[in-house]
């Protein structure tokens, strides 16, 4: 799969840093406009089908699908009692991964923590350095934001509004839906707009029980809106439609690419235009600046394998390295003109860092399903989503903003219920008879955007390539903790209303970062004094610099961000191409 050597002597129309959802989308849109684009990815190009092996049985795997000996993935307890950098204390493990890297199918997609240290407050930072980044293993929940999110300040007075409205981005959500495929059911909810859905998945009986049980409370359970093509995509030869094969809940991606990933969904088609050059193993160190014009001139990077340094020039530079890596790169790009880092005259780069709080959940059982024949429940790309209900029509007395629940239920390849007590014949029989009756859901809530939650550069610690590490100054606040209490109470209340037997209710909050939805470190806004980017994700300070990933978010909302990242990026890249054509960058 060797690519032709990238020509680093020519000046590209655009140089993109990062190949995940944002970088892939930028590559797709800009090459479609006919621009000559170079895409730099810090990680390697994996033979991804060989990594994912979605149809492999555990008994055919040397480690039954688990990590090989000498490898370890951090667990919640370790994230709680230890401080970053993670590495010291784990000398026995040659490879140390974030919590998501706990399977044989995800281990090569996430980074080795030892090579990529960070410091400061506790944070479960999941990074995937390879072509496609985290889209190779994402959870696929693909939700839209609405004006309840874009104009949240108008509703509760907190924070800032986005510089766009739903009507600005709606056409781009449509484009993303049609180009990449999404499954779901129309619900006509003003706070969670519908997409242009392909064939929906189906709810199982426990989910129907819950859906009907909470209807009288005015609450909505809908099929998991998954960024998965269920009808297929005629324009994309790299992706198959979903065949409901099962084991979709296994940590790892989709080897037939029915689930969206950036390489097959965006990058390979972009390469087919002839306008895209890809260079992997390219670790960006700095965005270079022309001292005469003050504009970005290109990217200085190190080849991760040869350790050789290179500089490549571009008319525009597009940062899409992920929310925290993009902030790090801007802060690293200090110069005489920009002593606080690039695009940072506001001092807001790295700040207003926000995400989703996770942890509180309920697990229960639809007892009428006990002993019924097994059903295929994990052949669906997702189970269900229970939509936000707080602070829509009525104000909650204890907190602002909202949360939704992601749920799962039914049989899976590895059975639920094995953590129950006991042993022997009854233990075995209960696991068998109960396997299809379980249902559980956990909440994702908005963490408020706060200036005092931020990242900066560690003055001492560096990564394997000698690049200063990121240092975290980040904690959940009172609003989040009050929301978490409510999550637990409402989870319990809804299971009770549906007549589900409750097995366990938890209010334990997971370590910061667990949602892998970090956002906001280079936020958009109309005021250059309090924001980094304008509504087209263009730097207020440097006109030919765009930051097109989650760092542009003004608030986190409670919806999963990937679909919004791609819709925003598409809109911004259309603008960029137009400006470049008019010679206005």
């Amino acid at each position: 799969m060797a690519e032709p050597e990238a020509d680093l002597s020519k000046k590209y129309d655009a140089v993109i840093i990062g190949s995940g959802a944002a970088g892939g989308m930028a590559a797709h849109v800009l090459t479609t406009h006919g621009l000559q684009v170079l895409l730099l990815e810090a990680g390697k190009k994996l033979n991804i089908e060989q990594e994912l092996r979605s149809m492999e049985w555990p008994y055919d795997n040397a480690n039954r699908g688990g990590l090989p000996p000498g490898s370890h993935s951090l667990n919640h307890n370790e994230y709680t009692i230890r401080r970053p950098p993670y590495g010291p204390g784990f000398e026995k493990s040659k490879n140390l991964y974030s919590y998501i890297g706990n399977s044989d199918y995800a281990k090569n997609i996430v980074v080795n923590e030892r090579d990529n240290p960070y410091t400061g407050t506790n944070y479960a930072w999941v990074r995937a350095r390879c072509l496609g980044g985290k889209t190779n293993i994402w959870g696929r929940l693909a939700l839209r934001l609405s004006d309840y999110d874009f104009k949240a300040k108008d509703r509760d007075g907190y924070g800032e509004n986005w510089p766009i409205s739903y009507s600005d981005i709606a056409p781009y959500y449509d484009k993303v839906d049609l180009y990449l495929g999404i499954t779901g059911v129309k619900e006509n909810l003003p706070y969670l707009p519908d997409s242009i859905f392909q064939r929906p998945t189906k709810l199982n009986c426990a989910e129907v029980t819950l859906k009907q049980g909470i209807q009288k409370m005015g609450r909505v359970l809908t099929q998991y809106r998954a960024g998965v093509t269920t009808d297929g995509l005629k324009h994309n030869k790299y992706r198959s439609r979903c065949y409901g094969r099962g084991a979709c809940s296994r940590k790892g991606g989709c080897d037939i690419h029915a689930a969206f990933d950036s390489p097959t969904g965006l990058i390979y088609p972009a390469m087919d235009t002839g306008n895209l050059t890809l260079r992997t193993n390219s670790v960006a160190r700095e965005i270079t600046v022309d001292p005469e014009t003050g504009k970005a001139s290109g990217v200085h990077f190190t080849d991760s394998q040869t350790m050789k340094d290179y500089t490549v020039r571009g008319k525009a530079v597009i940062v899409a390295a992920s929310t925290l890596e993009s902030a790090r790169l801007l802060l690293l790009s200090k110069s005489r003109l920009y002593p606080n880092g690039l695009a940072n005259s506001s001092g807001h780069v790295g700040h207003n860092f926000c995400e989703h709080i996770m942890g509180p959940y309920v697990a229960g059982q639809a007892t009428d399903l006990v002993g019924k024949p097994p059903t295929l429940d994990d052949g669906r790309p997702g189970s269900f989503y229970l939509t936000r209900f707080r602070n829509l029509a009525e104000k909650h007395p204890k907190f602002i903003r909202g949360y939704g629940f992601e749920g799962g239920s039914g049989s899976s390849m590895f059975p639920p219920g094995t953590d129950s007590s006991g042993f022997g014949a009854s233990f075995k029989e209960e696991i068998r008879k109960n396997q299809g009756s379980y249902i559980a859901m956990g909440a994702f809530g908005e963490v408020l955007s706060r200036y005092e939650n931020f990242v900066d550069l560690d003055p001492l610690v560096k990564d394997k390539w000698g690049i200063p590490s990121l240092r975290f100054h980040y904690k959940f606040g009172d609003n989040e903790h009050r929301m978490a209490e409510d999550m637990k109470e409402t989870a319990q209340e809804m299971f009770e209303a549906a007549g589900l037997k409750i097995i366990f209710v938890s209010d334990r909050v997971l370590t910061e970062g667990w949602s892998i939805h970090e956002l906001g470190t280079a936020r958009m806004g109309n005021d250059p004094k309090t924001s980094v980017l304008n509504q087209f994700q263009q730097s207020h300070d440097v006109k030919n610099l765009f930051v097109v990933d989650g760092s542009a978010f003004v608030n986190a909302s409670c919806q999963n961000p990937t679909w919004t990242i791609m819709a925003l990026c598409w809109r911004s890249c259309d603008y960029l191409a137009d400006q470049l054509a008019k010679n206005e960058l």
Partner: protein
Amino acid sequence: MSAKDPIDLKQDRRQWLKTSATVLGAAVLPLSRVSTDALPGESQSAQASSAGAPQAAGGEAKSGARFFTPAQHTLIEELSETIIPADSHSGGAKAAKVADFIEQTVRESTDDQQKTTWREGLRLMESMSQHYNGKSFVDASAEEKIAVLKVLSDNEQMTELPEVQFFHELKRLTVRGYYTSKIGIHDELEYKGNRVLMEYVGCGDPTPPTT
């Protein structure tokens, strides 16, 4: 033992630890079957490994360098089968070769604590079986085996005790080994997935034919 007569584990263990200490002091293990084996956890490979000798590579390692002695392997078979037994529906841990999975997992582990948990745990199971049943675990009846593990299961929250830690570790690896085996997935759970289906299955739908 009867249900009316609950075990006080912390009280009881003083006695069987005494027994255990006596036996260990005589360097004779209460393993009835293979008295010529190396001591548990002190098999040839463990000695070679601790002396810094390189591990045999590839297939050789699998056959030649076992962590557990044959007697210990038999003991693990019996322990795991007591956790997940054969029944009229499907085979149990023994048929699913869970002991082989445990052997591989512990042998390849880089966690010395895990190795210690297994070595010590197997000794403790023997001591407990001698104490409660007057015979080795592998020679005990199914009911007698259950009685030993029930003492630990009934006290499973006492995780400061090494025998309780071992019980959790035994159960964890037995469950993992069994439900990732052919018998566990296909015979026991009758898992429906991992094959091409033409339509999603919803509430009330029959399982559609596969292609």
